[in-house]
Structures are given as structure tokens and as C-alpha cells.
């Protein structure tokens, strides 16, 4: 148990390092690239006095080191200043409003992806399909190879726009069904990856003696695979979900844009196109925080589930 706690503690510390590096990258990307950031924000038509005011407001007129120190201190106080495009509204407030819908979308997608993926992996590994099992494997490989960007717009066209089977998730009164549709789309690539890795992991334990012991004691095949084989293969499954989280967040941005649904992605894109720097910095960092947080949780779950991880790390 102490080793597991140690592992999770190192990961948590690492999360801070990751967020720090990300914050620094966001900060320096804008200030090191040649060109006047104030001009970039206000556009070519801005007058000299407007530019000077903005430079003073965002402290572009100070030495870079001072700016960086100020940025880090603001970050530590969780105060990134006001949104440039909506004066008076703190940037962080806008970010916090947007985090909720994205977190909902992403967590439902993880849930669905895990369920679909595990079911497909067990079906592809168990004895039920006999000679037809390779077809399931091929189907999994094929689905894993189809990018979300290609099938999500097509599925939306067919299911929502043309035949109205499902509501458009961006529609304000689409409600829960819309959320289910969006997270289902997002879950498909994740589910395919989970299925691929889960299938490989299940095949490794498929010939283990403990499964035969379970069979000898009269367990049904369903119980053998779900109660005995699956727990032994959960490690790789949790790991693959953790490594797909980044792609999932990227996919969430694409889906939010596709459906014009509110969320972190929409906020980041809006802040990008209007050059609302405090909001952009806050939103990117919030997405990064969401990512490292879930990664740490995945590590903790993995350590909690699998005694081999606790022992070997």
C-alpha cells in the first residue's frame, strides 16, 4: 500500500510539473515569437494610444522576466485578470463555466468507451463466436483506424440532420439525448482502442490454469471471462484509457465545434479567434489540468486494482 501511495504521490507531483511547463509554453509562445502581441490582439487599425493602453494592461511593456514572474504569481492566485473581450468578467469565470459541459462529455465518453471496448474484447476472445472471431478482430481494427473527424460529421448528417433519429447535440433543447449522442460518437474510437488492447491482454491470460480451475468448479463461460479473466487484464485496459485521454480531449474540441455546443473547446476557439489571451491561457490550462488529473486518477485506479503494479514500482 505504501508503494501505491508513493506512486500516486509522484504522479501528482509530476502533474504540477506538467501544468507548469504547459503554462510556461503558453506564456512564452506569444512573447518570444517576433511581432507585437498588442498589435496581434487589436489588429492593424488600432491607434497608438490604444496599443499603449493594452500593453500597459497586459504588462507587455515590462521586462520578460518580470512578466513571467507576474504570470506565475497570478496563476498561483488563480487570477488571470479580466477577459479582454468581455471587460469586467474574470477570465477564470468564463473558463469555469465551460469546463462543466466538456467534463460531462468526456467522462460519459470514457464510460461508454470502456463498456463497449470491454464487451467487444471479451466477445472477440471468448468461445461464443467460434470461427467468426477473426471478423470481430477485423471490425475492431477497422473502427480504430477510422478518424473521428471523418465519421462524426457523416453520422451527424445521417442520424440528426437528414433523418432526425437523434437531436443535434448543440440544440439547447436537445437535453440528455443530445449529450448521449455526442459522447457516444466520442466513445467509438476510444472503445476500439480499449477493445484492441483488451483483446490482446485477454488472449495472454486465455490459457492460464486458473481459468480451467474455474471451469472445473462449474463456472459458466460468462463467469470465467468476466469474473476471472477480465480482472487479470484490467491493467492494460486502464493504461490505454489513460493514454487515449489526450486524443479524447482533442476529439471533444472537434465535436464541440461540429455541434456548436458550449464547452472548453468552443471557448478556446473563440478566445483564439478574438485573441482573448487571458481566457485562452486559462482555458488551455484548464484542459491540461483536466488531463493530468484524470491521468493521476487512472494511475491510482491501476495501482488499486493490480497488486503487481504495487509490488513492482
Amino acid at each position, binding site marked *: 500500500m505504501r508503494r501505491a501511495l508513493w506512486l500516486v504521490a509522484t504522479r501528482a507531483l*509530476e502533474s504540477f510539473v*506538467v501544468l507548469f511547463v*504547459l503554462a510556461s*509554453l*503558453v506564456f512564452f*509562445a*506569444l512573447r*518570444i*515569437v517576433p*511581432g507585437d*502581441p498588442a498589435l*496581434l490582439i487589436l489588429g492593424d487599425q488600432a491607434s497608438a494610444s490604444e496599443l499603449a493602453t493594452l500593453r500597459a494592461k497586459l504588462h507587455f511593456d515590462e521586462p520578460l522576466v518580470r512578466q513571467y514572474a507576474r504570470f506565475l504569481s497570478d496563476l498561483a492566485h488563480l487570477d488571470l485578470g479580466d477577459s479582454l473581450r468581455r471587460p469586467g468578467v474574470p477570465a477564470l469565470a468564463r473558463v469555469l463555466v465551460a469546463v462543466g459541459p466538456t467534463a460531462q462529455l468526456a467522462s460519459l465518453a470514457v464510460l461508454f468507451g470502456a463498456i463497449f471496448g470491454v464487451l467487444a474484447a471479451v466477445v472477440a476472445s471468448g468461445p461464443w463466436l467460434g470461427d467468426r472471431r477473426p471478423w470481430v478482430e477485423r471490425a475492431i481494427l477497422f473502427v480504430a*483506424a*477510422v*478518424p473521428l*473527424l*471523418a*465519421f462524426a*460529421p*457523416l453520422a*451527424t*448528417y445521417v442520424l440528426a*440532420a*437528414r433523418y432526425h433519429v437523434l437531436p443535434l447535440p448543440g440544440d439547447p433543447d436537445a437535453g440528455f439525448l443530445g449529450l448521449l449522442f455526442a459522447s457516444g460518437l466520442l466513445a467509438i474510437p476510444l472503445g476500439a482502442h480499449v477493445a484492441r488492447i483488451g483483446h490482446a491482454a485477454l488472449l495472454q491470460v486465455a490459457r492460464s490454469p486458473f481459468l480451467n480451475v474455474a471451469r472445473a468448479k462449474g463456472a459458466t463461460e460468462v463467469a470465467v471471462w468476466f469474473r476471472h479473466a477480465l480482472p487479470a487484464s484490467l491493467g492494460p485496459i486502464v493504461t490505454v484509457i*489513460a*493514454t*487515449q*485521454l*489526450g*486524443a479524447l*480531449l*482533442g476529439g471533444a*474540441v*472537434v465535436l464541440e*465545434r*461540429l455541434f456548436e455546443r458550449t464547452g472548453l*473547446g468552443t471557448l*478556446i*476557439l473563440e478566445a*483564439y*479567434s478574438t*485573441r482573448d*489571451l487571458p481566457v*485562452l*491561457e486559462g482555458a*488551455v490550462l484548464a*484542459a*491540461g489540468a483536466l*488531463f493530468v488529473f484524470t*491521468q493521476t486518477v487512472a494511475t491510482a485506479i491501476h495501482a488499486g486494482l493490480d497488486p503487481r503494479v504495487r509490488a513492482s514500482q
Partner: protein
Amino acid sequence: MKKPQRLIPLLVIVVASALAAWRHPTPGRLSPELAWCMPQMEHPLGCGEAGMDLAAIVSHAELRAIALAIAVALTGFLFGTFIGAMSGLIRGMFERTVERVCDLLQAFPTFLLALAVLSAVRAPNRFHLGAVFALTAWAPFARLSLVQTRVLRDAAFIEAAGAIGARFGGIVVRHIVPNLLGVVAVQLGSTAAAIIVSEAALGFVGLGPHDGVSIGAVLDQGVAAMLRAPHVLLVGASAVFATSSSFLLAARSSPSE
């Protein structure tokens, strides 16, 4: 090459795009009377917004995206192989750090990273996109190369090279890296496929190259005019799918599969 036929789809896409691009040398020419027209003899893929010929746009976009993907994948390949081999030989803290950084970068939302970094330029061009993709593209190569170096570093010929006085750099470049290339190259196809999709995704959300010659921009048009002109959406989606999956297939043509 065990299965060279797996390179065929990629070659077909490149040749077909090159031919179409040669027939339509200027993508993005507008002819408003043809706006959103369905596929026809003159315009085999139909037209998009303001009558842009989709065949012209898609072929130019394909060629540029494929060139970008190959360039970035090769850069990541060279840099990643070298970093991985070096960290494997140095061992200790450095090796563990490289390993962990690679793991993190592979899982990281690179798409968000790209958005954050691209905000520094007014209108991104393909060079900017390539630079952003290269920031993370080296990680899987370094990971593979590190794993393979761990196998190689205790081999007798490496010890022998050290014993006859070969320097560290010499061992990495002349003895380790040549033995890694075959194994690490397997990753080239999947990295290139991921870049094709990312480039299209950035174009789709409005961060693509500002000349609008991007599959993502076609997809964006298609989504906007979903009900009026569904063929635009279909063309964009199939282009992304065909290119990324032919890169994935090409990746499996190498001997170590």
C-alpha cells in the same frame, strides 16, 4: 518490404492527386454560378462554397498534407531515434526522464497544445503547423528506440566498440542507431496518419492554412452546408479517411510486422 502491395493505396492517392492538381493548377478559383453544384462531368467531385471545384481543392490539399505528414514524421523519426538511443546508453535518471516525458507527450492533448502555440501567429501557414506537430511527433519514436536500445546496449559488439576506444557519440551514431532504424521505422506510418488527421482537424476548427486549401476547410464547408450539399461533407470525410488509413496500411508493409 514483405508486403509492398500495402503501399499501393498511398501511391494511388498521391498519383491521382498529382494528376488532378496538374489539371487544375489554381485551387480555389471561384465561379459563383456553380455554388454547391453536385458532381458532374466538368467537376467530378462537385463544387463547394462559391463554386470552388472540390477536385482541385482536395487534390492540392492532399498533396500538401501528405508532404507535411511525411516531412514531420521523418523529422520526428530522426530526432526521436537519436534521443532514445542516447538516453538508453546514458541510463539512470536521464533515461527515466526521457521515458516519462515520452509517455506524457504520447498521451498529451497535442491538439490543445497546437491551439495554444499557434495563437502566437496571425495566420498559421504549413511551416507553423509542421513545427507544432514536430513538438510532439518525436515521442513515440524515442520510446521505441529506447526500448530497442535497452536490448542492444548489453550486446557484445557495443561493449567491444567501447573497449577499442570508440567515443560515446560514435557508439550512438555508428553502432546503435543503424540497428534501430528498421524497428523504429514501423512508427512512421501511424505518425504520418495522425498528422494527416490533426492537420485536417485544425483546418476544420478554423486554424488551418489561411489559403483555405485544406481538407479540414472542405469538411467545415460540408458541415455548414450539410443539408444543401451533402456531397461536400462526403468528399471531405472520405479524403481524411482514405489518406490516414492508407498511411496506416503502408506502415504495415515493413518487415518487422
